[in-house]
């Protein structure tokens, strides 16, 4: 299982001599700086304002006298840099995104673990065929199926509703795969004990298996939640009402050749990373474990 693998303590690993160590530190410091440049440029850009960005593009030149917080003021109050009040929908998108992350995240975890329990703990006719289907769907990028899926959503009359975003991905194939992997380490005796005590088959899942799955839920919550927060393509296809946009779709619409929305676009981008960044700083180890959960085979 994942956690056991993670917990293996190491006696001695690679050792480098002092010179190599210094070289490595220098190398990784330079690499880190390069990696952070785009983000630094973004933050710097929010203080330069949209009109400056429109003239000179995104760069690292720093002129303290030109920095201002007008772009941020527009984001939070709706007062544009020239003093005109023009409300924007950013925080409506933000609320929509949060709503989708919460609903989609929790429902996906519930449904996917429910399905994976069936695969992991029972022997039944057609099991291998069905599991092959899981792998099949996992192998095919969603982007290639988007057209028929869109027609289907349209036929169900769900276009422009959040159900269209959530429903097709409730049984998330990689989550099913991950939970099944996790459940193979759970002894069947536990399930049998539940049966002896008079639990229904579904009661066993709710009362015995779900508590056991807690660490797996936590790992998957990170993955599913981040994917939902950052998802662009599918929501963009099925949602056409401005008031129902999520943050990524909304930010995408702000791009125009005339640069009139740059203030909102740049501060909005910055503000969209913020929750993830705070979460990451607060629970770094946990998030990293969740993101790599799929790669470690137990």
């Amino acid at each position, binding site marked *: 299982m994942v956690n056991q693998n993670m917990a293996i303590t190491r006696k001695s690993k690679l050792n480098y001599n002092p010179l190599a160590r210094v070289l490595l530190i220098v190398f990784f410091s330079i690499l880190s700086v390069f990696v952070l440049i785009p983000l630094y440029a973004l933050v710097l850009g929010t203080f330069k304002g949209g009109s400056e960005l429109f003239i000179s593009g995104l760069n690292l030149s720093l002129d303290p006298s030109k920095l201002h917080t007008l772009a941020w003021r527009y984001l939070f109050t709706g007062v544009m840099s020239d003093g005109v009040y023009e409300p924007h929908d950013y925080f409506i998108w933000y609320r929509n995104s949060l709503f989708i992350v919460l609903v989609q995240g929790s429902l996906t975890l519930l449904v996917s673990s429910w399905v994976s329990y069936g695969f992991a703990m029972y022997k039944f006719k057609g099991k291998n065929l069905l599991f092959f289907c899981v792998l099949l769907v996992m192998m095919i990028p969603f*982007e290639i199926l988007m057209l028929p899926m869109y027609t289907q959503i349209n036929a169900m009359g769900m276009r422009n509703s959040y159900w269209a975003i959530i429903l097709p991905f409730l049984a998330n194939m990689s989550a099913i795969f991950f939970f099944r992997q996790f459940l193979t380490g759970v002894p069947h005796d536990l399930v049998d004990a539940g049966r002896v005590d008079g639990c229904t088959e579904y009661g066993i899942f709710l009362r015995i298996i779900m508590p056991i799955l807690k660490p797996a839920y936590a790992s998957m919550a990170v993955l599913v939640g981040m994917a939902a927060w950052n998802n662009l393509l599918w929501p963009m296809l099925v949602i056409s009402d401005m008031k129902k946009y999520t943050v990524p779709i909304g930010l*995408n619409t702000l791009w125009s050749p005339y640069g009139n929305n740059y203030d909102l676009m740049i501060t909005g981008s910055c503000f969209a*990373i913020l929750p993830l960044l705070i979460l990451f700083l607060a629970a770094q180890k946990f998030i990293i474990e969740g993101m790599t959960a799929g790669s470690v085979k137990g």
Partner: protein
Amino acid sequence: MFIIGLVVLVIGIAALLSLGGKGTKFDTAYDANGDTGAYLFGSLAEGQSYGVFQSIWLLIARYRNVWMLGGLLIIAAYVLINKTLLYSKTVAPYVFVLPFILTFLIFFVYPLISTTIMSFQSIKSDSSEFIGLTNYQNLFSNKTFYTAVTNSLRYTVITCALLIPFPLLFAYMLDAKSMKLAGMYKAILFVPVLSSVVVAGIIFRMMFSELDGALMNQVRGMFGLEPIIWLKGEWTAMFAMVLLCCWRWTGMNILYYMAGLKSIPGELYEAADIDGANAVQKFWNIGWPLLKPTTIYVLTISIYAGLAMFTESYMIFGNNSSPKNYGLTIVGYLYRYGFEKVDKFGFASAVGLVLLVGAMVINLLQLRITGVIGKRKGE
């Protein structure tokens, strides 16, 4: 009661199917009391009105989702009343797997069948007719299609070539006992993973903009070179997309490799130390072979992501059209004909199917070559 539930469910599904692909249009027309029946029964002649059955069917079709849900609820209620079913070990696994089966049928099998049919049709907004293989012939004689395929393959190969060896090397270098700062570097390299394609795309689009003051042109200026229009050159545009991808995924792949490295027992290195092996030898003889499963995993997801690449290009170029199609990928091609052009649905369906087959062939080939499929059978 079970039968009643089943019947209600089937009526709902039948209503759904009778609408074809015109669900939302039908609903709008129904709610506006417009020409709703035209979608189901064809237009009415002057002075004619719908029959009793037709009216009932219109009502059912409008509330098809309620019918389907109601059917499921009635069946569920039956099961709750008839408690012995809750203890049945033969029924339970199917109830557990049911959400998957429904998703698979509704959002995979049925759409796939309907696209296959549509790919042989010419579909206009109000009519459709079978035109045989014409869509496929048009597709394979279309030069833009080959541009899209070339771009996607090129992008996939380049990203795989960059995103496997370098993260592996970095992870290997970070995974040393003496690297005290490894945790910090790991965290910094991971930060881009948190940014969405949209945010990363906005940043990179402005960094690669054609303005003299944009970051990438300033970099050129530092080497004494003239500013260029990055996104209008075949290879410079590709460079922007690959750089965006590498920026976002290097940290992630490092983490995959570090997780893999953690499972290598330290005794192996000790033994190598005793034998007097140097760092490079240790890498080739211990690290590389033992990391093969991780490499296969990373390769698989890289190929998957490479073939599915669309949003990166969409964000960098601001929309799905790029100069001389330098940023057009296979998914972008599909998007263009499926969602941007009117009355090309049949053609787009053919595109989707060809890509589907292509992606599956590449996936199977890759798994076959790396030995994943062969091994499974032997076990």
